[in-house]
């Protein structure tokens, strides 16, 4: 198949996936048993108020019509009005979205660094001391919930050593970048978790490449170790490593929800938790779609990288898959 067709087919698959996910989100928020209006207002609300809200939310029309309207406005970038109150969803979401984006981008950079660096160190000579230590270390970190790691980090660095603040206060109207120190603990937490997860996957790739006969042959041919890594080993792990990093995106996004909550970081995750407590349907839907779209975009990039990098080589590269939820 020509390369352009393969790329287009990946794109089509991603769009279909996005559509399917949007149905799942819409269904879980609005269609599942129970009445959204009652959900929002609580069971003790007066029937008049419930009726008024039902009208406002357009609940009288069929779910399919509602979904279609919702999808159309989403596709046009119109997130609609809040279900509780009359602000536009976008004005509520935009600042937290920016804050989370800053956190996620910084964390993605550090996570990638940790995953690739650590993966190379551990996988270069499988079974050596560094490998075993990193294996147990990452296995332990991956096992712990994010807030436990955050809690331990706070205990140590904020309270015991008093190096950084335990709360990420962002000045009103400013951005987290104005006070970069607020980012340290949140980024560290995400890096530990997502980085450990990524490190394990990269390590497996490097270890496999390291046992390839041509890497072994290069070592037995007296090629310098740095050259072995750079010239013989890295080219064969570069593409799958990029894919692994893309697959760590859902991990990262899931991580931000908890981490923002722990450090009171004013991001999308905190907003989601807050709006769920306030039971605002439209804001929840909007945030859910922003998150899943990011994840699917990550998957798409992984896929495209896979297609682009395997076109020259005859052997099909084994595609890594997200091994852990």
């Amino acid at each position, binding site marked *: 198949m020509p390369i352009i067709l393969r790329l287009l087919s990946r794109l089509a698959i991603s769009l279909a996936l996005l559509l399917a996910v949007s149905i799942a989100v819409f269904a879980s928020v609005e269609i599942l048993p129970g009445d959204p209006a009652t959900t929002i207002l609580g069971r003790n609300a007066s029937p008049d108020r419930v009726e008024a809200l039902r009208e406002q939310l357009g609940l009288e029309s069929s779910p399919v019509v509602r979904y279609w309207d919702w999808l159309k406005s989403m596709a046009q970038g119109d997130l609609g009005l809040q279900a509780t109150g009359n602000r536009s969803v976008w004005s509520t979401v935009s600042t937290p979205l920016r804050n989370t984006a800053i956190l996620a981008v910084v964390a993605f950079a550090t996570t990638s660094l940790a995953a690739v660096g650590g993966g190379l160190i551990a996988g270069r000579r499988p079974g050596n001391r560094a490998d075993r230590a990193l294996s147990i270390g990452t296995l332990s970190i991956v096992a712990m919930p994010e807030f436990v790691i955050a809690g331990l980090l706070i205990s140590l660095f904020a309270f015991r050593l008093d190096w950084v603040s335990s709360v990420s206060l962002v000045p009103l109207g400013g951005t987290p970048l104005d006070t970069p120190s607020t980012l340290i603990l949140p980024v560290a937490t995400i890096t530990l978790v997502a980085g450990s997860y990524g490190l394990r996957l990269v390590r497996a790739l490097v270890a496999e490449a390291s046992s390839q*006969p*041509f*890497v072994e*042959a290069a070592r*037995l*041919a007296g090629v310098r170790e740095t*050259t072995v890594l750079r010239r013989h080993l890295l*080219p064969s792990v570069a593409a799958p490593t990029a894919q692994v990093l893309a697959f760590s995106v859902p991990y990262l996004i899931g991580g931000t929800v908890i981490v923002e909550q722990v450090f009171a970081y004013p991001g999308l995750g905190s907003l989601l938790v807050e709006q769920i407590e306030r039971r605002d349907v439209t804001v929840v839907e909007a945030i859910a779609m922003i998150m899943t779209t990011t994840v699917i975009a990550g998957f798409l990039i992984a896929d495209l990288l896979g297609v682009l990098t395997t076109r020259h080589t*005859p*052997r099909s590269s084994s595609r890594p898959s997200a091994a852990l939820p």
Partner: protein
Amino acid sequence: MTAQLLRFDAAPKLSVDSLTIADPDGRLILTDISFEVAGGTTVGIVGESGSGKSTLLRTMLGAVHRDLRAEGAVAVDGIPILGAPRSTVARLRREGAAYLGQDPPASLTPSMRVEQLIAERIVERANSQAITEALHAVQLPTDREFRRRRPYQLSGGQQQRLALARALANRSRLLLLDEPTTSLDVVTQAMVLDEIVRQQSGRTTVIVSHDLAVVAQLADWLVVLRDGEIIEQGPFIDVVYRPTSDYLAEIIDACPDLAKKRDQRPPHSALDGHHLASALKVDGLRAAYETRSGRVVAAADVSFDIHPGECVALVGASGSGKSTIARSVIGVHAPEAGTVRLADKLVAPRAADRTQDERRRVQLIAQDPWAALNPRRRVGAALARSVERFRGVSRSQAGKIGLDLFEQVGLHPDLFNRRPDRLSGGERQRVAIAIALAAEPDVLICDESTSALDVSIQAGVLDLLAELQRDLSLGVLFITHDLGVVARIADRVLVLDEGKLCEHGTLSEVFDHPHHEITRHLLASSPSLSATIEDRSPTHIQ
């Protein structure tokens, strides 16, 4: 400490002195190994799997696994390698030695171009001239277009040559070879061996192999290794002519050799006057299988028959689809056309559509007994189940018959309740044979059933098959790429080329008077220990 110069102008002397290597549990992998290789000569180290031969070769490159403990001395031209500083070992590998391991094309990094692969190994300035010389030395093209290629853009033969060129590009005078031709088909193997022979002159060579016939073509001195100990060593011809150890004598005898044909038996039509029913008859078989790179036609109009008590060998290059023919016969691969008759009775193409009795009549023994045996079941239970299903006896009776079969294939009853992972390769293959015999088949199809085994084990299994064939009047279809094995076991030979039977006749007809060029080529490429020895030692023949 400054690193010693490890470039040799003349072929270096290599010495191994009282080398002992043990694993962390204290188990000895090599015990008190001593031998010397004079400059410019070739030593062949022969041993079966687990003999420690690869460990020994790697020690000569200073490569001992970090978990192993090594004592003794290994020296190249008097420079100690074992326990030498890192810089010395690195220099030895970079400048002093050329190493080629199993499956040479796999040593070529796929992302690198031909010229990069060569240049990396050149010690002085890696200019165009030096690359040209290195490629030229192994008869590869030297043009610009070729040098820009990557390994996957080369033919299989070119990859073999390139791997050798890369190893030798440092102009080393010490060549270390670890089973360089194992897993190659005989034709490519012959080509690679020719090339190695050309490169031998002016070099000190060490070759490690399980195959005495391969070593015979190269070695001046032979070291026989078993369980980490030297069983015997000496000048090659002397040692193989008059082996002092039973072990070597046994290996020489077991070594498949196309010059040692089995006694010819009269063809079956002549056994008795009237027509004898064939046990298996295949007519006009057409079958293909899919691979990633496309469709491979395994059989294009293949017809043959097998009589009771007769062994027919089906010979062809690996990957030519011999297994697909076997799988079509037992009904697990759907052929495109053709018929299968068992005991002169037409049977359905699919095994599911055959009766239990029809399925019973033909049994397959695959190359890999690992895959054929359920790792979670005791082999005795698997065997008894087969008896129960095919012979329709009670479970307790099936157990007893199973034990009898166990003994019949030469297995100790103690192994009956073991899981497959606690059996050796040869034992597993015998279990597979016993399971096949449980069905009381007319025909046994052996698909490369012995090619994964060491020669001494292989000889035992081949003897067992010959015995069963005789005693039970079994028809055997023996699928193999090894003509030495064919010579040992077959009555008749079929040669398969691109899905067609290009040659068909009795063993001596095919081996002595081959008609087809493919057959001649295969015969000429197959190494024969006895023929090589005769070639090399005119003085010994009186």
